[in-house]
């Protein structure tokens, strides 16, 4: 079988040599220029967390894998549309979660009832610290919300979806998203008061 080339040659582009060190934004720029290695590196960096995060919103692993694929094909084709500012990870998430919404619209039965995600009490000190830093009492307030209300908060506030998209993700009409959001706000206000 063919061995790897006995001689190495200067890479045609800077990219090939320091792809590991390149920033996400630089990789995205190279991806826009058609550099496969750049996309591969972006995939290595961002596909794992994207897959896990999507998995928490959709119970069907096949559908999640498809959405991960869709997302990176979209990154390849649309790398040019990245504004150049802001976290690349957030940009990729924006693509990914909307692809998930689209995929669920085609296969609504696959939507996961977020209430089914098992809840576990806080245990480690780190987790308390994390909660304290990020949300403070908001964390426990969130955990006290009913699963339906929490799902709406997560979809709109944390995942950055519009009311309509959140409705599609959760399989409920957007009017219901709005009323649940109002109820969630009221509940949180009461809890944090």
């Amino acid at each position, binding site marked *: 079988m063919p061995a790897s080339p006995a001689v190495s040659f200067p890479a045609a582009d800077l990219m090939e040599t320091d792809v590991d060190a390149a920033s996400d934004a630089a990789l995205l720029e190279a991806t826009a220029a058609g550099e*496969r290695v750049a*996309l*591969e590196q972006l*995939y*290595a*960096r*961002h*596909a*794992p*967390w994207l*897959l*896990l*995060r999507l*998995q*928490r919103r959709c119970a069907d*692993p096949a559908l999640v*894998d498809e959405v*991960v*694929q869709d997302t*990176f*094909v979209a990154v*390849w084709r649309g790398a040019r549309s990245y504004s150049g500012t802001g*976290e690349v*990870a*957030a940009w990729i*998430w924006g693509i990914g979660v909307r692809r998930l919404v689209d995929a669920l619209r085609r296969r609504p039965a696959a939507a996961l009832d*977020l209430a089914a*995600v*098992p*809840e*576990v*009490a*806080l245990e*480690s000190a*780190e*987790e308390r*610290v*994390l*909660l304290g*830093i*990020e*949300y403070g009492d*908001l*964390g*426990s307030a*969130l*955990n006290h919300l009913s699963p339906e209300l*929490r799902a709406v908060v*997560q979809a709109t506030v*944390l995942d950055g979806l519009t009311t309509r998209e959140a409705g599609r993700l959760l399989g409920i009409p957007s009017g219901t998203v709005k009323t649940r959001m109002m109820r969630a706000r009221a509940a949180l206000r009461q809890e944090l008061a």
Partner: protein
Amino acid sequence: MSSTFSEWHADDRLIERYAAGVLDPATAASVEAHVLRCRACRTTVAGHAPAARLALAWSAVTERIDDPSPGLVERSLRRLGLTESDARLAACAPAMRLAWLAALVAVLLFCVVAAAQGDVGPNLFMVLAPALPSIGVGLAYGPWTDGTYEVGRAAPYSAVRLLFLRTAVVLAVTFVLSGAAGLVVPGHRNGVVLWLIPAIALVTGTLALSAWLPPAWAASVTGGTWLAAVVAYWKSQGSVDPIFGPAGQVAAGVVFLVACLAIDRARRVHAYDVRRFL
């Protein structure tokens, strides 16, 4: 946010529980928000993601990226029933390039505009419209217009099949555009159809000559002969209309039949397959 935020990192065990889907929603949400901004924690997360699934998804991504996205012409051809590979070959005809299409549209527009000014326009249209498809065929395949011509010659794919495939595409495009132009050229109620048989005769003649000449030469011969003859007639008679009368149509039909016989003969002796020129 606290200023210590950027120095904090999720530990491996927390991520492991996040990956397993057993974290409470609020903690999970904060992990997610943090991971979005922290490269180190993304790396930790990667250690807990299903590697096999990710590898499979990546190979699917490369397949989809490589898969050439079919253009409009190719998609239409496939809808017409061509196989994926044939549609691809046909759509790659150099004559499908924007430059050629733009030139075609420009010529037809010129005829339409000129027709509004007086007598010259309708005559001009009837002179040019039959020749346009042949010119397209001449550009569709051959040593100078198709960069991959030489590689294609050495490949097993039938050269005559490729030529005819591309001719069909050229005909479809020119007939639609010229037909549309014919509709709006004033003074020719039958302008839409009268040029059709001469056009088909010229294209068939070009294909027949292409067995022995490069298609571009063949198109020059047929198109040049047509233009010279018709323009000369126009000069002497003041109108080209009689050419498109019954006698002219029958003559065009005869040319078509003769060319068809010549093509059949050329195929039998593999004239399209063995080239003495390049």
